[in-house]
């Protein structure tokens, strides 16, 4: 499942292997997992954009979901003598030896988005989002929005047992703990998909007096929220007014819903992990500033006040 951009990237990476970069610009290798989701495609696009902005020569390698491809890519980056490596690891284990090789070659490695189970000395830093914090931001928004009024919440969980589902649930529950006006009355998995989000919301509406009993919906991702919004509309209620909708991810389609007044808030899981990574690398190379071992990206809250249509236009071409 390669998107067009990934194809171009993969071809570019292949051809760059033979080209000698004459410029003095930094050369940074980026080993990407693949393009299994729209979010990841957007991450790839943004990494290219951020590199271009800083005049960095980015060597891109698409691993097509295989660790062996990533290890191969890393070894070829080391052989080419790149200045630094960005790695979005497909799995957590099995990186020790290749990371040691990079260390021996004195090439700093920055992890993007996911962590590895190796010693912390083997990489410079990791850039990622805190999933618990994302849930927390969503919960705090609802606490402020309800302002002490009683509110029954229904929750659409992600895939049962997945870490985003567990962490986003925990963060939200932490945020509303101690606010007796807020109560989660139903919680069920929607598998992170639109179809299941819609189907589960339909059953929530039936089970809670046609939805009259529900004051807010918290969805672990935007896709489920988009499905649920349709279910709410089909039940004759107004999403965004009769039932508040808050979700996480900030994919383009939720901004369309927000512009139509059907969604109230979303917390961004930014696909721009490369920006902070490049900044940390620049500081490290300039005067050896050691970044913290984990750089947490901002979990920005978007509401209808943030000109959703403008954000939509900005995001729609990133490959989501």
């Amino acid at each position, binding site marked *: 499942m390669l998107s067009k951009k990934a194809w171009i990237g993969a071809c570019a990476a292949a051809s760059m292997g033979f080209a000698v970069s004459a410029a003095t610009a930094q050369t940074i290798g980026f080993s990407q997992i693949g393009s299994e989701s729209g979010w990841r495609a957007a991450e790839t696009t943004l990494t290219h954009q951020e590199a271009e902005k800083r005049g960095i020569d980015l060597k891109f390698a698409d691993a097509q979901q295989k660790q062996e491809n990533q290890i191969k890519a890393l070894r070829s980056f080391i052989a080419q003598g790149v200045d630094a490596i960005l790695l979005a690891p497909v799995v957590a284990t099995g990186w020790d030896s290749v990371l040691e090789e990079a260390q021996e070659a004195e090439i700093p490695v920055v992890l993007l988005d996911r962590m590895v189970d190796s010693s912390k000395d083997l990489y410079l830093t990791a850039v990622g989002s805190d999933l618990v914090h994302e849930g927390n931001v969503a919960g705090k928004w609802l606490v402020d929005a309800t302002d002490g009024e009683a509110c029954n919440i229904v929750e659409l969980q992600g895939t049962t047992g997945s870490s985003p589902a567990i962490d986003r649930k925990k963060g939200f529950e932490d945020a509303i703990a101690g606010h007796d006006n807020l109560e989660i009355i139903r919680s069920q998995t929607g598998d992170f998909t639109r179809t299941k989000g819609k189907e589960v919301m339909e059953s929530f509406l*039936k089970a809670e007096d046609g939805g009259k009993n529900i004051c807010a919906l918290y969805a672990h991702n935007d896709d489920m929220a988009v499905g649920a919004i*349709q279910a709410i509309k*089909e039940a004759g209620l107004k999403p965004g007014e009769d039932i508040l909708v808050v979700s996480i991810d900030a994919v383009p389609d939720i901004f369309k819903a927000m512009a139509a007044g059907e969604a109230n808030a979303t917390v961004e899981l930014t696909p721009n992990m490369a920006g902070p990574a490049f900044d940390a690398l620049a500081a490290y190379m300039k005067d050896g500033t050691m970044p913290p071992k984990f750089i947490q990206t901002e979990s920005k809250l978007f509401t209808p006040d943030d000109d959703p249509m403008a954000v939509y236009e900005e995001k729609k071409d990133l490959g989501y």
Partner: protein
Amino acid sequence: MSAAGHLLRRIAPQLVTLAATLLLIAIVFPGFFEISIANGRLYGSPIDILNRGAPVALLAIGMTLVIATKGIDLSVGAVMAICGAVAAAAITSGMGLVATLALALGAGLACGLWNGLLVSVLGIQPIVATLILMVAGRGIAQLITEGAILTFSNEGLIFIGSGAFFSVPMPVLIWVLAGALVALVVRRSALGMLIEAIGINRRASTLAGINARVLLIAVYMASGLCAALAGIIAAADIRGADANNAGLWLELDAILAVVIGGTSLLGGRFSILASLIGAMIIQAVNTGILLSGFPPEYNLIIKAAIILVILVMQSPAVRTTLIFLRRDKTSSQSETEPVVQ
């Protein structure tokens, strides 16, 4: 015995199971049977079952025919994803509704033709032949959508997924009509019997003059067409084609629906109506779990337990025991009739 009586006897176990499942839900969720009309369409949990069960019901129609020929079609979930993607891509590129639907249904027929050729001309075992498209199909769909959810806003296409005709949701109307049409065609002509003949003994039926090759291809194409309808409905329902998730694992639900419907995986006798009831039983279980309010960790276990009970009740061993016990009781009074399988 009359034809209607025969039919009733054939589907009695499925009807009893469906009724028992619905009653069970009504116990856990008392307001279950309430139906009203909201926004010009029927509204209520039983309607949700009929509506949400549409994809599996449609797949089960085609799957019943395929299984009756002693085959199996594992690719239907992937074909759903392909056809949904084709429909979304066509409508967003500015094609008309009729052309879009024709293209999507055509894609389903083409997928069925591919499966049919592999099975009947090359003689590859159906489970292997259709596995190819099951794996590759989702990739094809992802190529069409370029990995993203391809959304559209064409009212006509959306109507197929969430519109209503005389208050009846469109998906319900489509699967009921498709089921009735196929059942009539196979039962009011010799077609059904020919399909059963292939399933029982392909060689013998070929020798008897049945064009098994063409009939097999036609059956897989029918399955592809049903999958295309299901794919269009699934995409229209969420106003977008989700290549990663549309129809995911639904081939297994469709096979299960056919099995619950009492059609043997060894081919031969089949009942479209019983498979459709089987599909509704599966959806009733799904919807019931959602309404019950149990934590999601229990979903799969509850579903598996209920289906285990259903299949045990229908197993040959339990059936024979039941017949034996009944005969014991009534043997002195009257001669028992053989149970129609």
